[in-house]
């Protein structure tokens, strides 16, 4: 489950959505008056994580898409984690789609499958899917396609350069007793991926997480980390501010946002650890309650274009979901958003299958 949480973004999303809607209406009016030729196009409601993500898409991606296809995008700010999944699910039961296409996390994709929330997609109508890396075509167990890779991102080791003149190199540094009360880590089992990180760092890989017994062993190792953690955050904004000021000088965070903060001059660095960063991704998925099936396919096809993926890497800092050779990203540009170190891939199925148990164990571990 990703990102972009916060009651902050949720609270501001309402107003922003209203402003967006009024702006879109004004725009539509203006376009209508200019006598634009009618094209087979409507409006597509697209949800992305509210805040920085949505703003970047609004600015760098949607205008070109509308210019080329004539399809207007009504941009929706999604709340974090699975809140959006809950809302989409409830709305779909009532035959409504608050967004036609949404960017969804991998765990949310799997959970949505349980209630057939995602409309099956037709790959023949998304010719650019051939550029995608194979793991970015998401499928139902019966092989129907239900999601198309939108963007990929890394969770890495971040540190404040004033407090740590030398960059940490390994996830193992989090366990260093010198770092007592200095770390900021994600608070939830299903978005921190700390189980995979611990297993890779201390158990030679994520195979140990195949059994409940193995998971408990990894959790025991993770429990040793607790004295070092000052903040278990649910809200990115909560940690970013503390990281930038040096209040909480080390932790796990998103590579893209950390890079952006560094580019703005904050004393922050993101390090790809020797064990690999956590490679997570979001899918575009279509709600079964949506009637914008044609527009959704056009949109997803557009988003799979290598040049659009390259734009996202340059402007948003996300890793491409298409093959690297297909893009015109330079080595430096690619390294800024990705890494040649094999990544840690989250065990999404584990979260889907052991949901309740895992949650309970995790909460008891963190709060105990």
């Amino acid at each position, binding site marked *: 489950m990703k990102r972009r949480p916060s009651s902050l973004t949720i609270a501001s999303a309402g107003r922003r959505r209203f402003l967006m809607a009024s702006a879109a209406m004004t725009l539509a009016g203006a376009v209508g008056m200019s006598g634009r030729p009618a094209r087979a196009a409507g409006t597509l409601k697209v949800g992305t994580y509210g805040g920085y993500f949505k703003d970047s898409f609004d600015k760098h991606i949607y205008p070109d898409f509308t210019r080329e296809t004539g399809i207007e995008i009504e941009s929706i700010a999604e709340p974090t984690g699975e809140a959006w999944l809950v809302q989409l*699910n409830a709305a779909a039961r009532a035959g409504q789609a608050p967004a036609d296409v949404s960017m969804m996390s991998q765990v949310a994709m799997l*959970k949505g499958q349980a209630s057939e929330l995602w409309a099956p997609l037709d790959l023949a109508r998304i010719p650019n899917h051939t550029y995608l890396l194979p793991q970015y075509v998401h499928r139902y167990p019966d092989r129907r396609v239900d999601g198309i890779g939108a963007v990929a991102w890394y969770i890495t080791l971040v540190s404040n350069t004033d407090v740590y003149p030398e960059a940490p190199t390994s996830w193992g540094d989090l366990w260093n007793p010198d770092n007592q009360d200095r770390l900021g880590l994600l608070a939830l089992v299903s978005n921190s991926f700390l189980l995979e990180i611990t297993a890779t760092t201390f158990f030679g890989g994520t195979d140990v997480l195949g059994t409940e017994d193995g998971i408990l062993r990894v959790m025991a190792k993770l429990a040793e980390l607790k004295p070092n953690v000052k903040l278990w955050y649910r809200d990115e904004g909560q940690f970013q501010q503390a990281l930038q*000021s040096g209040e909480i000088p080390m932790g796990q965070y998103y590579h893209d946002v950390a890079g952006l903060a560094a580019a703005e001059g904050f004393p922050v660095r993101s390090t790809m650890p020797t064990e690999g960063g956590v490679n997570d991704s979001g899918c575009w998925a279509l709600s079964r309650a949506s009637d914008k099936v044609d527009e959704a396919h056009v949109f997803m096809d557009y988003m799979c274009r290598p040049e659009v993926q390259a734009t996202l890497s340059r402007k948003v800092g996300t890793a491409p979901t298409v093959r690297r050779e297909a893009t015109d990203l330079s080595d430096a540009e690619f390294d800024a958003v990705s890494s040649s170190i094999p990544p840690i891939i989250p065990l999404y199925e584990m979260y889907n299958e052991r949901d309740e148990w895992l949650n309970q164990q995790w909460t008891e571990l963190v709060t105990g």
Partner: protein
Amino acid sequence: MIDRSPRGAGAYVLAFGPGLMLAVFFLVPFGIMLLVSVAEAVKGGAYNLAFDGSHYARFFTPFFGRVLGFSLFIALLTACICITVGFPFTYALTRLGHRAQVVWLVFILAVLSLSEVIIGFSWSILLSRTAGISNLLVWLGLMREPVAWFPGLAALLCGLTYLGLPYTVLILYPPLSRLDPELPEAARMLGASPLRSFFTVVVPAMRPAIVATVIMLFVFTLGAYLLPQVLGRPQHWTLSVLITDQAIFQSNLPFAAAMAIFLMGVSLALVLVTSRLNRRAMGSP
């Protein structure tokens, strides 16, 4: 208290509007929540209506006992701090001139417009090592180096008290301003010190209002879910935080609903016991 039951059709017509509002905006959502709390959870925030008591069964563990215990403790402590600070303040406020009272009340109402998010983040900055008030104390020479006072129990209490204090004042203000000034004056004339007349005359006369305010604050604080996350450590996460986690992040609505009903049941029971004890105490000579 109205001790006469309303009579005639007019009274029923008048009561119809509020009654309808209560049904639509309170009873119906509550009924839905009750239904969801025994529904069968389906992954992804969906649920099937059923009778499944397993969500309630999950409470009977030491873990939930500890979380519930802490939630009740922190809510009660906050209510007590608020009343300790707020009662003398409000009493002093009612003794001020009219204009000063208005200024203070407007200020207190303005504080109410701050959201829990703003309050939480502001306190976390105020109590931080890098930008907090300890830097001021260092500058004044009272401390050797700046320290972080957050996250922790004290920080959490600061935030919760700040949140609850305006309500304390606003609830206590009407009864305290109606208090007959001749009561403490009579006590003074009989030779009691101001402090003594405050504790032996004003406080006992206001006991029902004080108990009502404590109950209100207790219930109000029990519902705070943001401040424990921002200002507290994981062991300070209350049941409301866990409810939010289940509802928003883990999309397990039935379990979240069951926890909410459970929390409501416990707090309702506590409130009933308190008000019953209070009434009995007031009734006895």
